[in-house]
């Protein structure tokens, strides 16, 4: 039986894993390769490394981190942050990533999705969507949430899938970092609109939140960062709670 995936996200700044709320008050959470290995050992089904470094020299730091992480990580490994063209994606794959995540660049140039998928396969292309509730619908934001696009999140997810995306990583900006639960309404709308897997992100605070997003939100996978880094939620413990609620998960892991 296909299981629901628990994905650990590592936000990286200048080669170190960091965690803060909405990119503020960043705290050091360790070395990316070590963090990734530790999360995998605890039972994470997948690792996402997002580079949020804003300074120059970012590219080499990212590639070094990807190389070091990939060397001893044997679960799917997705890398995102600043991938703007096919060559950026190629370098990240060359360094050992299995999938890349693109966000702003895909909105600016939807053809980029097909270009990367054409060369590396759709399974390697994750389109990340940051959505925020505006009036009654969900609007897509880019540039780390600073820039409104006027695009509707559900429509954009459909278009991204049609362009060749293999998965959608859907972040609720309203919930991100709040630990108040996933936005199940948003996740469900998108999950029902596309045939590719949808990864829910933003708001994870407890095992109950994961149960809800898999049940009510129809998510295929759920991603979290801070609750794993600081040991608030142990992944193995989380999975045993999911099992008790009859959510299929990889076990033992």
């Amino acid at each position, binding site marked *: 039986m*296909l299981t*629901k995936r628990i994905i650990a996200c590592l936000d990286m700044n200048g080669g170190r894993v960091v965690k803060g709320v909405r990119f503020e008050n960043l705290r050091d959470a360790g070395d990316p390769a070590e963090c990734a290995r530790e999360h995998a050992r605890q039972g994470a089904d997948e690792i996402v490394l997002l580079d949020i470094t804003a300074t120059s020299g970012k590219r080499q730091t990212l590639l070094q981190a990807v190389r070091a992480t990939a060397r001893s990580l*044997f679960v799917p490994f997705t890398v995102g942050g600043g991938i703007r063209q096919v060559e950026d994606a190629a370098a990240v794959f060359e360094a*050992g990533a*299995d999938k890349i995540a693109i966000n702003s660049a895909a909105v600016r140039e939807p053809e980029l999705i097909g270009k990367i998928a054409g060369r590396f396969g759709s399974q*390697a292309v994750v389109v990340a969507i940051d959505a925020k509730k505006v009036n009654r619908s969900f609007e897509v934001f880019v540039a780390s949430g600073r820039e409104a696009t006027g695009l509707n999140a559900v429509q954009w997810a459909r278009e991204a899938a049609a362009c060749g995306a*293999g998965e959608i990583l859907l972040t609720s900006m309203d919930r991100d970092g709040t630990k108040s639960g996933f936005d199940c309404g948003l996740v469900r709308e998108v999950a029902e609109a596309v*045939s590719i897997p949808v990864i829910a992100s933003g708001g994870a605070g407890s095992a109950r939140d994961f149960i809800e997003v898999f049940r009510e939100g129809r998510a295929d996978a759920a991603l979290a960062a801070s609750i794993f880094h600081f040991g608030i939620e142990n992944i193995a413990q989380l999975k045993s709670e999911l099992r008790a609620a009859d959510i299929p998960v990889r076990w033992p892991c």
Partner: protein
Amino acid sequence: MIAIVDYGAGNLNSVKKAFDYLGAEVVVTDHVEVIGEADRIVLPGVGHFSSLRALQGSGLRGALLQAIAAGKPFLGICLGMQWLFEGSDECAEVAGAGIFPGMCRKFPTSVKSPHVGWNSLTLRPGSPLWRGIAQGSFVYYTHSFHAPVLTETSAASEYGLRFSGAVDRGELFGVQFHPEKSGEVGLAMLKNFCEV
């Protein structure tokens, strides 16, 4: 020495990395002679069935068929396993090796496609690849087309229907999932392949 066949499709790094981690001697190659000299052959592959077309013009197809006929241990991963069948509806004009009968087909519309994630295996005990692997172990899949269940099916998974997660015949093995991405379970399978 293990030869990982490079026919220009997708990303072969993760497969090489896993064998490196296991301490196996491994080369990524598109040379027929290197494949001829190798003790073991791995045919990886992700993406579209049409990328297997590259095997045809290059002499690689003949070299692989010859190695399989000679009984050299061979592991096809994902598209590499699908190639062992007659073909795939994904690209009907590219022929598979036809070693196993049947075509690879789409999943039924009752389930989302592609099939992505960790799914459990119903193992047929006795395959050397499953040495030390527990019944019901989870492995990582990512694919839109699936191979039929045959008498040579050594592991099956369920997703809208029952399909071949793995096939084997003698020293010839195919796995639809990605052992290189399936954690400790996958590494143990690759290690078993190194010892076949």
